[in-house]
């Protein structure tokens, strides 16, 4: 993620200019596979989804004479937005983010700082061990966690019960899903933070040491502010990813009655398409979700760019 060094583009520009002079054949050839795939798996499906979202199926009488497809304009969008269940899905996402973001960011930052500190031993081992959960496919992880949550079969719940504590995670799906996500993503984001920490110029840290800052002070007042950009970026990707929440709750859905069929916006779209055969509504709710994600990324990018530009000016 951090490998695309921006400073390299000016260095290559003379060669790029040569290619341009030689004609458009070669670049077009190299770009074609990407553009073809991009069109086939991105543009066409998006266009088709938008198209589907404008139609609905109608029957007459008792409905046993088959259906006809009719144009409804933004009717499906109005239905999705007017459905309390769809709006509740966004509420779920907000609750999820409020719990998930601080816990996951805090943990991965803490672990990265610990690994970066002079005291850490066996850094490679811990890095690998912490990253390992991310290598487990999400659906497998969700299945295993569901098993661990289920009273009557889970050794964890049983141990807690015998210790007098009663844990009902199946009845509280938000913390249940947050726990799965934290387990899966903490190590991954730790790697990003750790890489950013490693890139901090050593002289800055030496200066902090000279000024008499202890390890804790260095971490909080020097290191964390210096990697704020990565923290923001991870937070942004996490929020956008959270909008897509699907796999974990879908696995829980079959086992935890507290998870409803429209628990997240993605599940709402899934249920509309594959349970209710209402492709128009499913497409409309997906498009709305995509728009929400796009708007969110735009706002966050704007906000963070403004801040880092200001900082760049200040340091210049």
């Amino acid at each position: 993620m951090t490998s695309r060094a921006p400073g390299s583009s000016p260095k290559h520009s003379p060669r790029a200019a040569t290619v341009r002079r030689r004609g458009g054949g070669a670049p077009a050839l190299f770009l074609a596979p990407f553009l073809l795939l991009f069109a086939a798996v991105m543009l066409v499906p998006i266009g088709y989804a938008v198209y589907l979202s404008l139609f609905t199926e109608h029957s007459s009488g008792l409905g046993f004479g088959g259906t006809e497809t009719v144009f409804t304009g933004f009717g499906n969008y109005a239905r999705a937005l007017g459905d309390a269940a769809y709006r509740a899905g966004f509420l779920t996402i907000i609750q999820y983010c409020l719990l998930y973001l601080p816990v996951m960011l805090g943990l991965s930052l803490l672990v990265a700082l610990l690994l970066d500190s002079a005291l850490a031993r066996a850094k490679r081992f811990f890095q690998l061990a912490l990253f390992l959960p991310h290598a487990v496919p999400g659906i497998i992880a969700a299945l295993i966690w569901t098993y661990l949550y289920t009273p009557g079969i889970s050794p964890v719940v049983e141990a807690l019960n015998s210790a007098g504590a009663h844990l009902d995670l199946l009845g509280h799906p938000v913390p249940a899903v947050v726990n799965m996500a934290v387990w899966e993503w903490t190590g991954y984001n730790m790697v990003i933070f750790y890489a950013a920490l490693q890139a901090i110029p050593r002289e800055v840290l030496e200066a902090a040491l000279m000024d008499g800052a202890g390890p804790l002070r260095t971490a909080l007042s020097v290191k964390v502010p210096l990697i704020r950009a990565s923290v923001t970026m991870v937070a942004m990707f996490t929020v956008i990813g959270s909008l897509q929440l699907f796999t974990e709750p879908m696995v829980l859905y079959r086992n935890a009655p507290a998870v409803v069929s429209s628990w997240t916006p993605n599940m709402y779209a899934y249920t509309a398409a594959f349970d209710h055969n209402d492709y128009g509504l499913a497409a409309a709710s997906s498009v709305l979700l995509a728009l929400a994600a796009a708007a969110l990324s735009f706002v966050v990018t704007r906000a963070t760019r403004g801040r880092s530009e200001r900082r760049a000016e200040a340091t210049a």
Partner: protein
Amino acid sequence: MSTTPTTARPRRAHLAAAATAGVLALSLVAACGSGSSGDTGASSGPVTITFWGWAKGTQDVVNAFNASHQDVHVDFQQIPSGVAGGYAKISDAAKAHNAPDLFNVEYAALPDFVSQGAVQDITKLVPASLKDKYLPQAVELTTLAKKSWGLPLDAAPQALFYRKDLFAQAGITTPPKTWDEYRADAQKLKQAVPNTRIGTFLPDDPSTLEALAWQNDAHWFTGIGDTWSVDINSPETKRVTDYWQQLIADDLVRVQPSFSQQWTASLQKGETAGYVGAAWGGGVLKSTLASSPDAAGKWAVAPIPTWDGKPASGMLGGTTFAVSKDSKKAQAAVEFATWATTTPEGIQARIASGTSSLFPADPDLVPTAKAAFKTDFYGGQDIYSVFVDAAKAIRPDWQWGPAMSVTNNAMKDAFSKLTSGGTVGAAVDASQQATLAELRNRGLKVSR
């Protein structure tokens, strides 16, 4: 990282946004592309039909058919059960015009498939002589708008499965005949064996509640002329929901999803001593508990309790064979479906697989089914005689609605609030509202 140029970031964000949209759209399209065409029928030689199903023992039935028939060859594909994704697969395939010639669909889902236009009208291929073979209640459910849309495989009369030893421990010598007795026995059982409950309320599965409402003479859907009358939260239904709500509130039954690990574990440990199910449950319960050998021989089957002590039953589940709209081999498909549902060979092959205890929709085949089912799990009890009486007591004139997936999902979603102040009664109210809204949205006429 802190040196990342400011220009790279927005581009990445746009990419992320685009990817977001792309993945969403993709997930829809990818799922539509599943399925297979399988148009291998040749002009000479046997006609090959494709068939999707999931009912227990189906592979054995197909094998037996293929071995004994020269004119038709069945190419069977096992799909996930309807609610576990099978129905989505079938309707997507139907939309993409590559559905199999024949597929299994439960009675409750048949109207939904018919109104989607996924099912072929087979009225001309179903003579009166064939119809007469099936239980009239089953024929009723496959006849919509006076046309035949499927052949019934089984009737699913309700039954009560219970652990004899645990009931005996609580001093219960005969299984409950009425719902009042069921409640009293639930209390006795909880008193005698504090960790054990008499049964389970299945919050993921409205079909049990539907069968119980049906048993109490509710009529959720009635087609009058070209208008649907929807009466889900009727007084008959409310009597049932209030009763179960009280059982839940008094902690006399468990609230666990059907066939979940939780439910299975609870049955295995003897923490749940009963199951309000249907005839097919005999085979399913047996195979679900196959890994706990000490359960064998301790289970028994009793008639489903009723409100007034007189036999009455709804139908819990039950499967039909439907021919897909686009199939050009309807005749061959009906030939196989007829064989599978009305011949001793067809039923014998299914039951002998050991996992099915379905109650044939053709009552003449009950002796065949009875002879083929090994009842050692039930201590040698003649479980089919219980089912025979229950089948006679299935109330007529029940009709399933044209949007049962919406009806059921609304109910399931409302059941999720059972642990946080919601009630079973509120769930049927929610279902009534959601169903009315859906039918209106589809352009159907509804009256309340």
